[in-house]
């Protein structure tokens, strides 16, 4: 079943076309990755899905409810972890969770139990009565994920969930998040600009400047760029290239003193190459395509080369638009 359905979604802020005719679907119980550089309008799209922003045109449905017209139903069906913390730092972890339980109308008989379960889920049971301001970044993020699950949503939105975390907290959080669909029967919709994080997704849509450039499984997207790349250093590159073309029948060219060969199954070609021109080979390395390569190929730029500036530009454009238009 398609738990999220987005059809030709468009949002303008004055002259700025922020979200441009976006369509996609998310299968229930999967992890869907929304991937793009800063300023790609990932958060704007999430805000429309979360009923915080209405679209200029197009439709979005979550669990069959229209995000624009049935906001109350949609809100009950979703949990959200925003990019910036939305915890009350002057309350304890337990109080933050309890607040959420009240706000989402969790039955009195279940409230306490759900809060305790949530704390245990993210290993914060012992810190439950500490003020959130004493928590580390990773603890806060975990607490927010736990909070988002308290009312048992069907879809959990995670907007850059690992932003600003150290590598260890990041990998801990990922382990936890990837287990959620099975253990909690929830669909994950996440945004990230870390390519390697998107690899855990069942399906990915790559967004840039408000448009979806491509979508598919991580494997499908990697296929787009034609498989693995083998890099060779030889004692005579020119001769080696000729030999490879003649003996193996594959394209090869030279760049920065290295020969590179594109091959669908790199691991099969390496032994062949060694067999044919083994005596001149000085070194061999192979690179699997990453989503970064996909992004690079499709947009012509590195995903992380985009600086925060691009995002800031849009943020300030949106802000001034709102100031002028009474925040329509």
């Amino acid at each position, binding site marked *: 079943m398609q738990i999220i359905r987005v059809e030709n979604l468009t949002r303008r802020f004055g002259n700025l076309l922020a979200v441009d005719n976006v369509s996609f679907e998310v299968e229930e119980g999967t992890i869907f990755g929304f991937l793009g550089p800063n300023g790609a309008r990932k958060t704007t799209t999430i805000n429309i899905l979360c009923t915080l922003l209405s679209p200029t045109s197009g439709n979005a449905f979550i669990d069959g409810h229209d995000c624009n017209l049935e*906001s109350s139903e949609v809100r*009950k069906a979703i949990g959200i972890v925003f990019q*910036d913390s*939305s915890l009350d730092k002057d*309350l304890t972890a337990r*109080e933050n969770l309890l607040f959420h339980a009240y*706000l*989402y109308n969790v039955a009195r008989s279940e409230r306490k139990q759900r809060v305790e379960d949530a704390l245990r889920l993210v290993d914060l049971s012992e810190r439950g009565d500490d003020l959130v301001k004493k928590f580390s970044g990773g603890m806060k993020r975990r607490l927010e994920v736990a909070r988002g699950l308290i009312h048992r949503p069907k879809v959990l939105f995670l907007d850059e969930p690992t932003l600003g975390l150290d590598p260890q907290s990041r990998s801990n959080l990922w382990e936890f998040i990837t287990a959620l669909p099975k253990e909690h029967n929830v669909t994950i919709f996440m945004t990230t600009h870390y390519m390697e994080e998107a690899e855990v997704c069942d399906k990915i849509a790559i967004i840039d400047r408000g448009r979806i450039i491509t979508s598919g499984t991580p494997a499908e997207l990697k296929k787009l760029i034609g498989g693995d790349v083998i890099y060779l250093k030889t004692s005579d590159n020119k001769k080696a290239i000729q030999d490879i073309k003649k003996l193996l029948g594959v394209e090869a060219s030279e760049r920065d003193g290295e020969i590179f060969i594109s091959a669908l199954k790199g691991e099969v070609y390496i032994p062949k190459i060694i067999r044919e021109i083994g005596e001149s080979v000085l070194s061999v390395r192979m690179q699997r395509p990453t989503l970064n390569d996909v992004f690079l190929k499709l947009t012509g730029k590195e995903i992380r080369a985009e600086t925060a500036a691009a995002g800031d530009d849009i943020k300030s454009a949106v802000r001034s638009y709102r100031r002028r238009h009474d925040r*329509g």
Partner: protein
Amino acid sequence: MISNQLCVPTGDGMIEARAVYVIVAREYKKFIREKTRLVSAIARPVLWLFLVGGGMSKLVPAGGGVSYTQFIFPGIIGMTVLFSSIFSSISIIWDKEFGFMKEILVAPVSRFSVVVGKAMSGMLLSTTQAVIILTLYPFIGLELGLLQIAGILLVCAVLSFSIASFGILLASFYDSYESFSVIMNFIVMPMFFLSGAMYPVKLLPTVLRIVAKCNPLTYGIDAPKNIIFPLETGRMGADFPLFVDVAVILVSSVVFVLIAGKTFERKA
């Protein structure tokens, strides 16, 4: 983070009531946790009552047996209510700045319940502080009956709901706490000085008197004057009849909470 559509109450009153309750509970919990905030909230009116009142009463002669310190007592209670109600609703700006507002805004509760919850938080916190200030009455030579005390607190409750709603209306227009000093200097302080708290409205020049008459705080302070000095008809006495005072603060409460509700729905 804005939506064009208004979030209509779902019709399930229990859900909305529970949301109002938990919003109030959160504010109250934070209020009693922050001892310094409570102390400074109490210190200001106490200083005004005894230092300004004590000093000015040497300059301003008593009228009809009412000393200047006694005269400003209703105004000092009004000041307590004014500041604590405004502070309480300004917390919306803090909530926006620190992100917590988003947690509230994506919850399946109507925007109006959020406003009512915030206004009721202001009411609870302000009336609590008013009780503390009110206990000072024996120290300035006043005698109050139980009925009078109950009446004053009732007025404080309605007045604080009104001012807190007004504060929410203000807070809806601001996103950062730099705006806080603007609100304090250009709205809250003039409201206080043009409320009959420190001097009778009837003695003000015409223009200022008109402004004072448009200020709901004026009636919120005039009501306790009526209650505390029921027999005083001179310059130290109340400016308006008690029923007018009560009517104005009741109506202003309803009007402000509705406007604040609409504005918050549209802006937040």
